[in-house]
């Protein structure tokens, strides 16, 4: 296994991102929307990954369980 080509991804952050995206989809409260968007941005920065890449990770979790 070539560790230089791999990246450890914190599962909690991937799932927190996924959950925030889902909540954001139906949220109407502007304060909560702002807070969610800020946290999503923080997670993307922390993981150094785009939303698409994080979504890909979350979907891998889904496909492996269901």
């Amino acid at each position: 296994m070539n560790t230089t080509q791999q990246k450890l991804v914190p599962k909690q952050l991937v799932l927190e991102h996924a959950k925030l995206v889902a909540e954001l989809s139906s949220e109407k409260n502007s304060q909560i929307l702002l807070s969610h968007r800020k946290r999503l941005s923080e997670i993307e920065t922390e993981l150094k990954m785009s939303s698409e890449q994080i979504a890909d990770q979350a979907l891998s979790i889904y496909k492996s369980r269901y």
Partner: protein
Amino acid sequence: MEKFELNKNETNTNDDSNQELTTEAIEHMSHSLESIKPVISEQELRSICEGSDGLEMLLESFLKYSVRYANDVWSMEKLVADGGLNTEDGIAVFADMDEARTILHNALVDSIAILSRNIAKEGKDNSWVRELTNGHELQRVACGKFALLTIYRRYIDNRQNI
């Protein structure tokens, strides 16, 4: 922080003790953009349903179930990742959540079937639904993934306006 290892050849995370997934380097993940693509986009569905009160109502029903399903799935997975199955209470909570999620999953699949059938009845293109079937009937996992992709795509497409 708990981490997990994603291995392209070994993706079974049913074993929750496996908290490490390895993924290939970020620079090798250019496939991600393409992978976050539902079989049909929300915008395309809106275009198909536009002008028909019945179809618009059925589309909203599918979208409503998609949001709820995404919330349920990620809440459950987060519970597991946070060690929620380490206690009897946690296991009971998970079981309740999973039962509710299964019922919601059924409703989601039904909402896709009804939407697709009524689109066809109105003489419009419902060929996209074939990708969610095994050739005969809708597949539960494919429908679930379709819902999750739709919600992710909504976020990704709208973030420029955020």
